[in-house]
């Protein structure tokens, strides 16, 4: 099989605005917690915790929110795809069981 010239280019491989948005959100949540110079200090303290420590612990929640946003965006795009491309052999793929996932 000649790989590079294969005709079956699935449209879902194309980059869509949703995918750019998701990538941006995820990159934000990956890069910012690693910018150590932005939080490498002791003050201000919170409940005795130096900034260095409580800032990173707060990022646990920010990262979870970012992942949730990315999840929501990807699910929305996938539902739209499934609405436009019903699966062979199943009549109601866009509602009910799949919608509740």
């Amino acid at each position: 099989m000649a790989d590079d010239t294969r005709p079956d280019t699935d449209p879902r491989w194309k980059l869509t605005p949703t995918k750019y948005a998701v990538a941006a959100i995820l990159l934000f949540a990956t890069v910012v917690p690693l910018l150590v110079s932005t939080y490498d200090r002791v003050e201000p303290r919170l409940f005795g915790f130096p900034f260095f420590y409580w800032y990173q612990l707060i990022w646990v929640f920010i990262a979870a929110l970012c992942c949730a946003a990315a999840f929501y965006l990807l699910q929305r795009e996938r539902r739209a795809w499934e609405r436009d491309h019903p699966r062979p052999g199943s009549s109601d793929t866009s509602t009910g069981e799949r919608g509740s996932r």
Partner: protein
Amino acid sequence: MNGVNWVALIVLIVLFALVTALGFQAARWRRPKNLESLHEWGLGGKSFGTITTWFLLGGDLYTAYTFIAVPAAMWATGAVSGFFAVPYTIVLYPIIFFFLGRMWSVAHTHGYVTTADIVQGRYGTRSLSLAIAVTGILATMPYIALQLVGIQAVLEVAGVGGNSAVARDLPLLIAFAVLAAYTYSSGLRAPAMIAFVKDTLIYIVIAVAVIYLPIKLGGWLGIFDAAQAKMNTPKPTPTNPDALTGAFIAGPGLHWAYASLALGSALALFMYPHCVTATLSSKDRTTGRRNAMILPAYSLLLGLLALLGFVAIKAKTVPMGLDGKLNPQLVIPQLFEDHFPSWFTGVAFGAIAIGALVPAAIMSIAAANLFTRNIYKAYLKPDATDAQEAKMSKIVSLITKVGALLFVLTLDKQNALNFQLLGGLWILQTLPSIVFGLFTRWFHRWALLAGWAVGMVYGTVEAYGFCTACSTKPFGNSLAKVPLLGDAGYIGLTALVINIAVLVIGTLILRQFKVSNGTDLTRQSDYFADVGDPGVVPVLDTDTPLH
């Protein structure tokens, strides 16, 4: 040393026995017709939903790494060597979002179970998938070794062991024997079931520890002050007379070390055979991603656990081994023994020991699956029956643990965290082959192999003893000066960058000469398939021939 803590030891043994009984019971959970197959022994039937997957993944994250190695590193040398685990588990989830869905889809369309399967399907190149399989097994060994160190630490503080050469490693051999017997008989079902119990126990213990201890010791402010005082105490080394004990916060010059340890560990985690198995065992495409939203709950507890290392500084815990030497790995068990009644200490010890045992079992099973599927069946005995495969996996899971034992016995145990970083160094070199292929076929198979080889050699040589920051050799430290950058950084990540550089240059050359890039068995639509699509195997089928 204060001798054997009988109450704690008995509680520990009782908990252990209960969990073991439960483990054997679990073999009957969703009982299959026949346990004598790789499918059932090694993959637990592959029908796990969000909750079970969460616990299984939690089992991979909450290990002796979390409650022995990280706090020990915090206690000994502070933030840079220990607290990086927090950003590590934070950036982990956004990263897995990028590729987990595609990996699930292609695996379930083609019945792939291991990372080497995925690479084999994408490039049809046996040597490349062999490299992935061998690396997976090798990298798992130091990670299992870390678990053995954890169990050993608990037993040693409880008073099992001594100062003679034989007695010193006795707890380790006990830990090894229990783990081996356990995995051999029950396979993946037992750790999956026990993971529920394990996590419940751990949550209780952690909750009590992180609430009660700071109150008793006068609050977090005092704890951080004590840690700061310890870290800023001069501790000259031969190479650096101005050296301090450790880093209270990362500090200038160590930013890249901190960030690269976190990023490297995060990139490495999902390349490990056991993590891939856990995520692929979920029943639909989004389970893994849904988990990425709720798994950060683990990170918060991990951060608080890491800080128990600082709590121990304030509490003036002396982690004295039975051989009369200071051993940082003992600091958390010792902290519990000093501050809690014996029975609760026993519960905590049980939680830690079981918490090390479960992931060690999962890891050795995953490594054994990798061997059976991608080496034994691919090269040695293509017509092996199910029963032969299961038998082979059981034996290899034993061999993997012997390898882990060798790591513990030959390497310096003072910095157990380094075991995990050593495994990460190796497993990271498989990332381009596994992940890049999920997005593009541009990268060339021989360039992938060359990049892998260069990354492995550079990383191993550097970590073995040529690194500038190493105080103990071999494999004493995972930080080394980064070429061209000057600051210290995680060797594994540096090796990955070199790996990718070789990969890109190699690909450009090979494409120039139009060298064949292997046979791709996958189609683009495979990367988006979900359960219910035609061709998607709801339960991964290990019998599908690959080679």
